[in-house]
């Protein structure tokens, strides 16, 4: 085998070899696999654990696994978790402190748990979500050191989207089903009469070295054009879309909209949307003391703007109503995120729609706000 620069093709054995190669490099390979009736992200020891032959049927508040005849591994979307479960875990220790015999305190920073992850099957929407969390958690003055360490060690193998779901709307957020940046390798799955294979594009030197370790061949024109065609077709098969207006201006001008009351009547304030969102990053900290009172630990854990304690100031929470909390979430996600981080906070992955038990649909809510703003403007 010679070093590959142009696109290559892997077959299923090649993908097996890829996972083995990553594991033998000491990497923790994480990818999609079937568990508990869903395609979850979990540690993989072999490519055989990928969800070959499984797809999903999605609706607002509904997710069902469905078998696929083509045996595809990456034909699914809007799983119950995102990669933030690994890069920005739900709970992480920051430091500890102990009382010294002299009566003082000694502080010990916690070395972050930072395995060398290899993420296999990162969707283009999730590549964008990771880039957004990079900006939030490492782009400012104070880096989240644990996130930064895990992120820098992580290898990303994208899987371009050829099967968008009913809750997908990445195109209307400025993204799309093609992986254009931020990956080490990008796969495009092709299943046709010529076999089950993966077109591979190289995005980094690390990716090129990895590809050279596994059996592959130079990409033939037919595979390349089939792969391109499938990704292009996916652009036009989005299940949903956000209104094509200046969302920052729309949300900024909708603070008193009546629609917030309507959605608040349906919103459970359970927090699921924020937990499944691949860009929501909010955390709180907890102090854990032991019974002796001589040892304490500070832990960071996921929080949510739907938690009353999230806006707790003296004398209680600032955002008491469901209306104020849903409005905060949506307005931050689509509008004030621009002011804070220079982009929208939404990549159109559709998880918040699918995993809301009440089936609240962000695209429908924005459309309703748009309609209400339009009505206002006409008056």
């Amino acid at each position, binding site marked *: 085998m010679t070093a590959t620069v142009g696109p290559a093709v892997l077959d299923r054995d090649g993908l097996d070899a890829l996972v083995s190669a990553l594991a033998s490099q000491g990497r923790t390979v994480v990818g999609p696999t079937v*568990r508990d009736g869903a395609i979850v992200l979990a540690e993989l020891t072999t490519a055989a654990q990928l969800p070959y032959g499984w797809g999903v049927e999605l609706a607002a508040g509904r*997710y069902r696994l469905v078998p696929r005849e083509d045996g595809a591994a990456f034909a699914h979307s809007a799983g119950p978790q995102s990669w933030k479960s690994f890069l920005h875990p739900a709970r992480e220790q920051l430091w500890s402190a102990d009382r010294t015999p002299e009566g003082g305190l000694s502080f010990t920073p916690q070395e972050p748990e930072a395995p060398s992850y290899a993420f296999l099957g990162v969707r283009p929407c999730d590549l964008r979500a990771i880039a957004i969390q990079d900006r939030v958690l490492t782009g400012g003055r104070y880096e989240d050191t644990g996130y930064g360490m895990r992120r820098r060690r992580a290898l990303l193998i994208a899987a371009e989207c050829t099967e968008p779901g009913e809750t997908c709307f990445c195109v209307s957020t400025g993204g799309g089903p093609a992986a254009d940046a931020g990956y080490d390798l990008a796969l495009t799955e092709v299943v046709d009469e010529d076999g089950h294979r993966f077109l591979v594009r190289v995005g980094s030197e690390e990716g090129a070295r990895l590809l050279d370790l596994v059996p592959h061949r130079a990409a033939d024109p037919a595979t390349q054009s089939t792969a391109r065609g499938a990704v292009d077709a996916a652009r036009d098969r989005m299940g949903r879309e956000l209104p094509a207006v200046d969302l920052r201006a729309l949300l900024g001008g909708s603070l008193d909209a009546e629609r917030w009351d309507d959605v608040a009547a349906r919103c459970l304030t359970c927090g*699921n949307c924020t*937990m499944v969102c691949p860009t929501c990053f909010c955390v709180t900290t907890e102090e854990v003391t032991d019974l002796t009172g001589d040892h304490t630990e500070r832990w960071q854990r996921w929080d*949510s703007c739907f938690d*009353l*304690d999230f806006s707790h100031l003296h004398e209680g929470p600032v955002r008491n109503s469901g209306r104020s909390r849903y409005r905060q979430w949506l307005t931050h996600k689509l509008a004030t995120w621009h002011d804070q981080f220079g982009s929208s906070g939404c990549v159109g992955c559709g998880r918040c729609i699918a995993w*809301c038990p009440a089936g609240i649909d962000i695209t429908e809510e924005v459309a309703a706000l748009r309609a209400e703003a339009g009505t206002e403007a006409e008056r």
Partner: protein
Amino acid sequence: MTMPTLAVFKLASCDGCQLTLLDCEDELLALAGRVEISHFLEASSTVAAGPYDLVLVEGSVTTAEDAERVREIRACARHLVTIGACATAGGIQALRNFADVDEYRRTVYAHPEYISALATSTPVSAHVDVDFELRGCPIDRRQLLEVITAFLAGRKPDIPSHSVCFECKRRGTVCVTVAHGTPCLGPVTHAGCGALCPAYGRGCYGCFGPSRSVNLPALIPLLRRDGLDEDATERLLHTFNAPAFDKEVSR
């Protein structure tokens, strides 16, 4: 330095919550080294007189004697923590609040005249001031230790009041409602159990009672969608925290 004293009392209850204290096996010796256990009948028949620094009360008020006793308990408690669904919400025995107690008495007992009970089962907080309420049927062992540890350190216990959904998502459990259509009270139920039931594929049945931010009227149509008729919905909400959920339904 004298150690703070701990006392455990019960009203109408099954003892399961106070047994959680004995269930703290690994921490029990450390705990006994930090507090003087002065009154805990499940552990020892030797009791010391009050007042006590920390009092844990299990059970609900169901008799006139209980109503009097809970005032005495409060009077000897510097810091009163109620533990479990009975003490914080009236418990399963509060189902009587929605029925005719005399009818129950006549139906169940051969000599109903021997039974002296109030018409309702009520939480301790309906009778005396309570410093902290720890939810659950039964309570969670780690949360009980947190409440005691926080008391010893003089800080607020870290007992989040959000929904069980937070706990499912943090532990990576696939939502049983969205992925399987299983009716679940998780979105309206107070966290604390670690999302135990959904981790085993069943819906939450609300044994920790309502969370601090509940929109129960929005959940009822979803329970219907997932196959519960009116009777089944009422049965699901009428278990260990029935009066607390009932208040939320009619909100």
